[in-house]
């Protein structure tokens, strides 16, 4: 095993494999920065190029590209409030709020350092999980996966707003997300639901146009209203100086970083939940780390823990997602499904062979994640001053550029103008939600989890009738969901109780 581990490193350090990894990192760096241009799409675009490569070179190229997309996606999310990737939307809430306070450097430092820690934990999980992963994943059937989706939704809905009314708004937003997830052809009977008799809506609402509209349009409107740069009137000197402080923040909140990285890894391992869930779950957990309701008020206004948590989860999920892909050929996400295609193109069959005959290749994947993230984070730190300086650019120069990127990013999801209409409509929805003080996070999570939850609920009922509710893991998850809902109320009651 140790031999294979070292051999994996040596394989990736061969000049050709290393050069391909650098090429992949270069592509991934820019793909991550550009809103809407997704990692999965680019992975698919790059797949034809690997035909003539050796397996190690091909995976160095593909995985090198894919594993840095989330890191640079965080940069766009923090600086412009536009999700660089669908999986990096949660970091906007506090990261962009910090940028607006002139703390872009600190937010970026925290995001990059936590991303690196997350990536290392994800890679370590991949390396350690190889011999023990099978029983873990096999304990989760459809009922457990459905309950996991419910826990995730309860988690974010109850924690993203305060008080009874805040919680109602959280669940309203989550319910709206679940409703939107039902748009399109029903997977069980093929009925077209809520499609308004339009062909475009038959396939359901695409996540990217919805996310871009929901988050970018209110930011653009606010930028026009303020008439200043993103960082507003914050002193220019502070913008560039906080990066080291951000790195320190990661170590000040080290256990939060580790816990969020583990959440990301677990979400990555669980097939079908998808990467977009990881950051929101981690954000919910970071919010929960606030000890008092007053402390929780700081979330959404630029609390660095709201950056550290999602930053760590976003990259750790990649290592986690590789585990079921390699071990069982069950991809945990769209990107992993495309990567699985890469395995077959190269004549490799995921499963026992990857854990025995091709073990050095498997470990080379672990090393690719580690090296690609170290190189990217180093490059980002070198470019940090130039990147953060963008928050000092006047709003009237940024607005047209961001608007162009928003519309192109949205249009490229399905190459349809209808995508732009969806973006504009959800831009209006996002604006009114912000104006009314409603949380947007539960809506996104509801949209992401809706289809999955419906499928798993249907399979659970069809397979077990109502007996699925009695399965031990389901009961544990149900108790967890109830606990998550009532935890803020208990916390508020304890803080009011006289000492």
């Amino acid at each position, binding site marked *: 095993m140790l031999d294979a581990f070292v051999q994996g490193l040596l394989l990736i350090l061969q000049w050709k494999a290393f050069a391909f990894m650098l090429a992949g990192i270069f592509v991934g760096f820019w793909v991550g920065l550009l809103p809407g241009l997704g990692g999965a799409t680019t992975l698919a675009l790059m797949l034809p190029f690997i035909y003539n490569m050796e397996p190690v070179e091909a995976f160095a190229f593909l995985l090198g590209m894919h594993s840095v997309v989330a890191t640079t996606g965080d940069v766009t999310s923090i600086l412009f409030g536009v999700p660089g990737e669908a999986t990096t939307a949660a970091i906007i809430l506090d990261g962009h709020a910090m940028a607006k306070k002139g703390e872009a450097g600190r937010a970026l430092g925290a995001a990059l350092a936590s991303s690196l820690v997350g990536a290392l934990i994800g890679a370590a999980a991949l390396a350690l999980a190889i011999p023990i992963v099978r029983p873990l994943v096999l304990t989760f059937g459809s009922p457990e996966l459905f309950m996991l989706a419910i826990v995730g939704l309860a988690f974010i809905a109850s924690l993203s707003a305060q008080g009874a009314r805040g919680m109602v708004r959280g669940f309203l937003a989550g319910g709206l997300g679940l409703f939107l997830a039902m748009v399109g052809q029903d997977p069980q009977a093929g009925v077209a639901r809520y499609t308004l008799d339009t062909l475009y809506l038959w396939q359901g609402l695409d996540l990217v146009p919805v996310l871009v509209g929901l988050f970018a349009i209110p930011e653009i409107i606010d930028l026009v209203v303020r008439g200043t740069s993103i960082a507003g009137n914050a002193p220019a000197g502070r913008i560039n100086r906080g990066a080291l402080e951000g790195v320190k923040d990661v170590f000040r909140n080290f256990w939060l970083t580790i816990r969020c990285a583990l959440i990301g890894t677990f979400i990555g391992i669980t097939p079908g939940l998808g990467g977009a869930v990881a950051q929101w779950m981690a954000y919910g957990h970071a919010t929960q780390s606030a000890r008092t309701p007053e402390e929780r008020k700081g979330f959404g206004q630029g609390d660095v823990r709201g950056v550290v948590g999602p930053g760590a989860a976003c990259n750790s999920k990649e290592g986690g997602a590789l585990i079921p892909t390699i071990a069982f050929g069950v991809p945990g996400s769209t990107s992993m499904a495309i990567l699985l295609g890469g395995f077959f193109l190269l004549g490799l069959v995921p499963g026992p062979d990857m854990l025995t005959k091709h073990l050095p290749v498997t470990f080379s994947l672990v090393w690719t994640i580690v090296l690609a993230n170290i190189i990217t984070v180093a490059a980002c730190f070198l470019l940090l001053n130039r990147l953060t300086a963008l928050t000092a650019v006047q709003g009237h120069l940024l607005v047209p550029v961001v*608007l162009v990127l928003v519309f192109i990013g949205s249009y490229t999801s399905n190459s349809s103008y209808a995508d732009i209409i969806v973006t504009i409509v959800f831009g209006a929805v996002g604006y009114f939600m912000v104006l009314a003080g409603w949380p947007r996070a539960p809506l996104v999570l509801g949209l992401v989890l809706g289809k999955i939850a419906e499928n798993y609920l249907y399979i659970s009922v069809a397979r077990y009738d109502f007996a699925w509710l009695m399965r031990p893991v389901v009961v544990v998850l149900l108790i967890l969901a109830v606990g998550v809902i009532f935890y803020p109320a208990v916390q508020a009651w304890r803080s009011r109780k006289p000492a």
Partner: protein
Amino acid sequence: MTNRASLGLAVAIMALAAWGIYSALDWPLKSKLFPLVICVPLFCLAGAELLWVVLGKGAARAASDFKLSAEHAPEVARRRTLLAAGWTVGFFALILLVGFPIAVPVMVFAYLKVQGREGWIFSAIFTAAVWLFFYGLFELLLHLHFPDGWLFGGFGGF
């Protein structure tokens, strides 16, 4: 304004949920199970929020989310919000009419001149840089197809 926005959202969600329930009634059980499970509580929760707003009880605390800046007078903020919405919708209309390759430079230049009050030379150079980035990355490198606008190539793109 916050309460009016909340009222609007609650009413919109109630209407959406009611439509969701009404539409689902005609579907087979396996298609309507999940919509009913979601829409019925959604309708009730939206009703609760509506009552909260109308009765003015239970002060709501803002969510852990982005907050709109409040540094300008409400009428200035409203005017600028409408202006931003106008630019956004106008850009989309321009894309529909003339396609991305023409709409991008026209919008960037117009925004810099009208909204930013920048000089002719700076606006032209900035627009050229944005257009080169757009053309170089999306058309030359990624070969993304952008349809001609309705004025030039029929009613495609949907």
